[in-house]
């Protein structure tokens, strides 16, 4: 078996899940763009507004003329797709490069007569293959799903697919470079995601400031440079591929100059510190501390950025109708409240992702043998999982309070409206029940079986889908309401109702309790 095939075999579940979600997202949404704007007049108004609006420009880039359904799709959904693609590229690249080195599997393979450059070459080959499958999948999904959608052509669909593939390729190659620099896999992942954040910021400010050159420097600006369904610029895709190849070559160069298992950056591995803790909660807090800090900074930054960009949208929904993705998000009611609710839904999604990851750490510890150690010093069987859930819930609260406070300070300066600060804070903190319910699902699954714990992403994905695309996809409201997100009432509006939030918290508590009880009725899991 070649090393490349070994990598595919090892990561096939994760890769298939990502590919399925991303192609499904393209194929499932493209046709809804035909129906979103019923009349030509409505569409023109929306296009004019979207082209003028600063926040839409920051979020999605600039909408090219004439703004037909295909261009709308590329502009809005394409922006979401390119971010997801970039995140996928970072996670997959680290998993097949540094993570495999840190866990010792590459060492084993290198000891079997595999040439020292082979692991990196195989990883790059795998990533190229994934990029191709992703590109073909997204292109075909758009081409097939959008047969009757105005402006969708096969030539454009192919460029759209190629753009997605090239975005994946560039971010992967960049992450491969960072993986040579970082001291550990975790650090490489962090650097890669920071790079994606920076790419988004560069693109956003380039587009907002009409600095095309700047926005095209960003891997996330490729979609705007290639303009599928408008200009179909193949050379832009070609340049991106060349950049990817150059970065891959750089990764190779750096890889030759570093020690196996260590990055170019050294880390301090010695310190005089003591740990004063007596409970599993104390331990879980200490172990999760650095990741909580990183999440708090990232979520607060995203939340503050979104809130600060709201002025245009709010004014726009006060004057005319705002269609498409953003329009479907905002709905009716007080424009400022609607916008803040939308921003904080995004915050809620991020916090729920943190909740799932954080609870799943319990499962990770169990399979890795750390829970054995803890239980063997007299800790009760249910305590490690319960502690992890408690620390997760508290961590979510910390992230949301910090995000809410920051938004409450920034939003009133840019958004006109009543009680903007109160609303900004309450919409952020109001995401906590959704996070608790998500954590509860993860706790129950982990409690029932460490092997099933990964299914905790299912309720998360469903809630996210309902919240972001529910209206666009025409999912009935009574089903959308089953999602954990978008239940936060407008506290400054007439008679705010918080029943849904109480239900979510109660659900989280009950599921967590059941999960903790379930652990006591099963064997500890080992890999």
């Amino acid at each position, binding site marked *: 078996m070649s090393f490349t095939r070994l990598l595919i075999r090892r990561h096939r579940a994760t890769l298939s899940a990502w590919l399925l979600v991303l192609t499904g997202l393209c194929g499932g949404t493209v046709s809804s763009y035909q129906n979103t704007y019923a009349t030509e007049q409505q569409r023109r108004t929306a296009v004019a507004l979207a082209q003028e609006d600063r926040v839409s420009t920051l979020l999605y880039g600039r909408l090219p003329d004439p703004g037909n359904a295909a261009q709308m799709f590329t502009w809005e959904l394409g922006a979401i797709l390119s971010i997801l693609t970039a995140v996928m590229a970072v996670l997959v690249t680290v998993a097949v490069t540094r993570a495999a080195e840190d866990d010792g599997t590459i060492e084993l393979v290198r000891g079997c007569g595999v040439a020292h450059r082979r692991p990196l070459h195989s990883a790059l080959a795998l990533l190229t293959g994934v990029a191709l499958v992703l590109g073909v999948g997204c292109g075909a999904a758009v081409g097939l799903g959008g047969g009757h959608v105005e402006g969708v052509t096969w030539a454009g669909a192919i460029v759209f697919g190629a753009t997605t593939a090239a975005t994946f390729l560039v971010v992967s190659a960049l992450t491969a470079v960072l993986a040579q620099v970082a001291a*550990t896999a975790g650090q490489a992942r962090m650097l890669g995601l920071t790079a994606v954040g920076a790419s988004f910021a560069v693109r956003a400010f380039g587009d907002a400031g009409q600095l095309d050159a700047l926005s095209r420097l960003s891997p996330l600006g490729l979609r705007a440079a290639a303009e599928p369904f408008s200009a179909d610029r193949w050379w832009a895709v070609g340049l991106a591929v060349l950049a990817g190849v150059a970065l891959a070559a750089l990764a190779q160069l750096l890889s030759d100059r570093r020690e196996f298992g260590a990055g170019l950056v050294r880390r301090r591995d010695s310190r005089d510190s003591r740990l004063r803790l007596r409970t599993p909660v104390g331990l879980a807090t200490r*172990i999760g501390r650095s990741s909580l800090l990183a999440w708090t900074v990232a979520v607060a930054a995203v939340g503050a950025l979104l809130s600060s960009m709201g002025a245009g949208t709010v004014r726009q929904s006060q004057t005319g109708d705002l269609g498409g993705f953003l329009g479907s998000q905002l709905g009716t009611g007080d424009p400022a409240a609607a916008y803040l609710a939308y921003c904080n839904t995004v915050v809620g999604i991020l916090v729920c992702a943190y909740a799932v990851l954080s609870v799943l750490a319990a499962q990770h510890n169990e399979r890795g043998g750390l829970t*054995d150690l803890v239980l*063997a010093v*007299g800790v009760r069987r249910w305590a490690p999982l319960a502690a992890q859930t408690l620390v997760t819930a508290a961590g979510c609260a910390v992230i949301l309070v910090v995000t809410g406070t920051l938004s409450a300070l920034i939003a009133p300066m840019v958004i006109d409206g009543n009680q903007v600060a109160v609303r900004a804070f309450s919409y952020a903190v109001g995401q906590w029940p959704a996070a608790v319910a998500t954590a509860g699902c993860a706790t129950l699954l982990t409690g029932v079986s460490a092997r099933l714990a990964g299914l905790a992403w299912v309720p998360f994905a469903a809630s996210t889908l309902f919240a972001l695309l529910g209206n666009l996809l025409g999912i009935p409201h009574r089903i959308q309401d089953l999602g954990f997100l978008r239940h936060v009432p407008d506290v400054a509006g007439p008679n705010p109702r918080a029943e849904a939030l109480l239900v979510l918290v109660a659900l989280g508590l009950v599921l967590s309790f059941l999960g903790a009880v379930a652990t006591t009725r099963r064997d500890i899991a080992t890999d």
Partner: protein
Amino acid sequence: MTEYAVRVEGLVKRFGTFTAVDEFALNVSPGSVHGFLGPNGAGKSTTIRVLLGLYRPTAGRVRVLGLDPATHAAAVTKRISYVPGEVTLWPNLTGQEVLDALAGLRGSRNVAAEKRLVDEFALDTRRRVRTYSKGNRQKVALVAAFAAPTDLLVLDEPTSGLDPLMEELFQGCVRDAAAAGRTVLLSSHVLGEVEAVCDAVTIIKDGRLVEAGRLADMRYLAASTITARPLSGEVEAVSERLRGLGVAVETDADTVRLSVPRPLVPAALGVLVEATADDITCTPAKLEDLFLRHYVVGAR
């Protein structure tokens, strides 16, 4: 009769259709050092995990320090020190922080003993766990185990990553623990180590008990090996007389080699001395001889 520190009767543990442990029994006397032997995959670690309450037995009666670990796991493990076969620690913590965490969770600690053991094992506790080798991770677990004020030590192949000097230190620690009245259950493949420190052993194979008892008794029952060189021309005659005692004899040119049960050793030696044979050697049974025959297994 004294109460056993560990008493297992008729233990069965199944995972789906696979029976890892089948009608197994284990008795460990308090204050003893008990060796737990068996080939890889025989069910040693599974049994140990049942003793710690990490696995629930499918059937059988298990008592550890007088309690049932399936229902009183925390109460049992408060009084146990455990060193797993594969030591995983939190990679971001330093060795010292891991010791702090484990002692803090246990709620009892012997700081002086811990300091002494850290020095003896030459462990740099300021370094992060991620930089530790397997041996160093094992040292952290061993320091935590020996330093904790517990009654029973459950050690699952604890020395597989240690160098010979540390191995010797480890044996000293086990003897000290036993001298202090603590009980030790030692799962190990290192027969020399078992021979050096254990009073009694239990052998498991394919999940079943094959042999258990005090080492001295087992050795007594096992055959010693005697070799000698009778005067030339007398090899056949001497062999005949030895066979008369009921002993199996192999001859090889001018040498005789015989396997003799302990009670017959004086008589066999008498025959050889009487025949004025040269180069008489008598080797008592080694643990290898006792155990290795149990190690031949098929994959499972």
